[in-house]
């Protein structure tokens, strides 16, 4: 049976250390390990937009997905494949914590790996994505410093 590891990416250096750790876990587990890289574009269905933003939303979304694939996922995937890992990439819109934990359930993942982020004003007030993830996830979460 394949073991799935989910790695949450947001295009920051934290993602690189998360990938590095995922590689280490994958080599410990063995060949039948699949690494799923998931890039989450922060988005909420309950935000307030201008009519113009709404009209262009569909094409913006396509663009966001394309950019995430080209700039973040593609380089990481090709590198991992070169090193012989089984890897796939996904781009989703929504709340990062929610998306990652839902994805974990969907693919029956073994664990979720994310990089630790610096503390911002926002995270002090609303709690960070990682804190939410720990609350929401149904599988173990590893936070890589």
């Amino acid at each position, binding site marked *: 049976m394949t073991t799935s590891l989910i790695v949450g990416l947001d295009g920051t250096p934290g993602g690189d250390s998360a990938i590095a750790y995922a590689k280490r876990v994958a080599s410990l587990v063995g060949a039948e390990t699949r690494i799923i890289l998931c890039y989450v*574009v922060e*988005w909420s*269905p*309950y*935000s*307030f*937009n*201008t*009519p*113009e*933003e*709404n*009209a*262009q*939303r*569909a*094409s913006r*979304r*396509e663009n*966001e*997905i394309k950019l995430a694939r080209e700039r973040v996922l593609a380089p990481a995937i090709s590198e991992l494949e070169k090193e012989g890992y089984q890897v796939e990439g996904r781009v*989703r*819109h*929504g709340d990062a914590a929610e998306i990652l934990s*839902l*994805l974990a*359930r*969907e693919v029956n993942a073994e664990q979720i790996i994310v990089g630790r982020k610096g503390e911002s004003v926002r995270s002090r007030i609303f709690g960070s994505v990682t804190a939410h993830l720990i609350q929401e996830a149904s599988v173990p979460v590893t936070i890589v410093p």
Partner: protein
Amino acid sequence: MSRFRSLAPWAAAMAALMAASSARAEGMDQAISDIVGPIVNPIVSTIFYSVPVAGTQFPLIVGWLIIAAVIFTLYFGFVQFRLFGHAIRLVKGDYTDPKDEGEVSHFQALATALSGTVGLGNIAGVAVAVSLGGPGATFWMILAGLLGMASKFCECTLGVKYRNVNADGSISGGPMYYLSKGFAENGKAGLGKILAIFFAICAIGGSIGGGNMFQANQSYQQAVNVTGGDASFLVGYGWLFGLVMAAIVGMVIIGGIKSIARVTEKLVPMMAVIYVIAALIILGFNFSAIPAAFGAIIEGAFAPVAVGGGIVGVLIQGFKRAAFSNEAGIGSAAIAHSAVKTSQPATEGIVALLEPFIDTVVICTMTALVIVITGAYQVEGLGGVQLTSYAFETAFPWFPYVLALAVLMFAFSTMLSWSYYGLKAWTYLFGESKGSEIVYKLIFLAFVVIGSSMSLGPVIDFSDAMIFAMSIANIIGLYYLMPVVKRELAQYMAKLKSGEIAPVDKEAKRQNA
């Protein structure tokens, strides 16, 4: 959107003072008024052709909107009550496919459309209705709001059904598109095209009038008011205020500075919520007066005392304000709602029926109740936003400042919304190119300056006239296309019933994805 007619005497006094304090600046404002006045007056008197009914002037256009709302209510079998609960579930996202995450949600489409309609009409327009029509006007206003929900349902379903997806992936929708495409489907392309063009011209006029000049004008008046009234340093500098405002609007619509728009879009709903909460608190304070207030509203609606025109007079005031405020049947909302991500046009129509409910039945009613319950409407010499301000002030002495900020924010967000509606009408007529967009935007900005320079009367009349003219073509189209809407609704309801469309269980859907 809307207008406070009873401010006219106050504005006249203001104008006199302006003349005294700053002859040169006044000359500038006056010159602009003199040029534009004669052009707009004939347009205004045509659109607002009124017939005397029971001693009151009844503008036919208001009857046009209300009759349409009644017909749609009956034709769609009281859709606004039958599907109210379903509308809320749609907005919550219960039926949204997780694959559509990142697209425009029902909530976003509704919120965007609302920020275009919730505005001065909810604060000032209602005060006008109650001061002229007495407490009873509230009853008719609520009734008109409830009926208007069916008009919105109809136009927004069509807006989504006949929208265009442009080459760049952006979406254009609204009456221009359903008038031309819908009529063409039935072999009446020529008629559809004429109606669409007529609508587009009126929409451009409306975007410049009610969606722009009126807003700029009221913002200026409000700014003068809070900076010391007659003694304000802004007196006589309407054109300068207009230039500053035009610069800020220009930064957003031409400069593409998103942060300004984003801040406004977030503040406006917050303001609306603060407003409703403040109203509820005042109602709570005056708990014991509520039954008496309801008594006054019902009695005033059916057996009014001391109101010109009796029941009909009260009814007209209520109907007029509701129509001014929620824009049901005008067609503007169909432009805003059409960007939603859905494969079922009826769903957005159903969501849109919440719009007049929130705008008129909730927010306008709050204003009316506060004015009635505090007895503010009995105070002589108050009208428009001053009346609302006074009513809230009786409970919260600091409220006029919040209200002033709210008026500015509402005006600004309404201008942004309408600049978009006008732009869509413009590009429908002149093609989707960057060049033609810039031309429209520059014209729009010029009218910000004109709007804040002109005296109130011509501005209000022109803005009302152009917005209401939109409903002429739009409602003809709605009558013609309502069988299409009925079919859309019927097949959607059938799919709901058969379970083909069911609330999304997020987990299950993802498993299969």
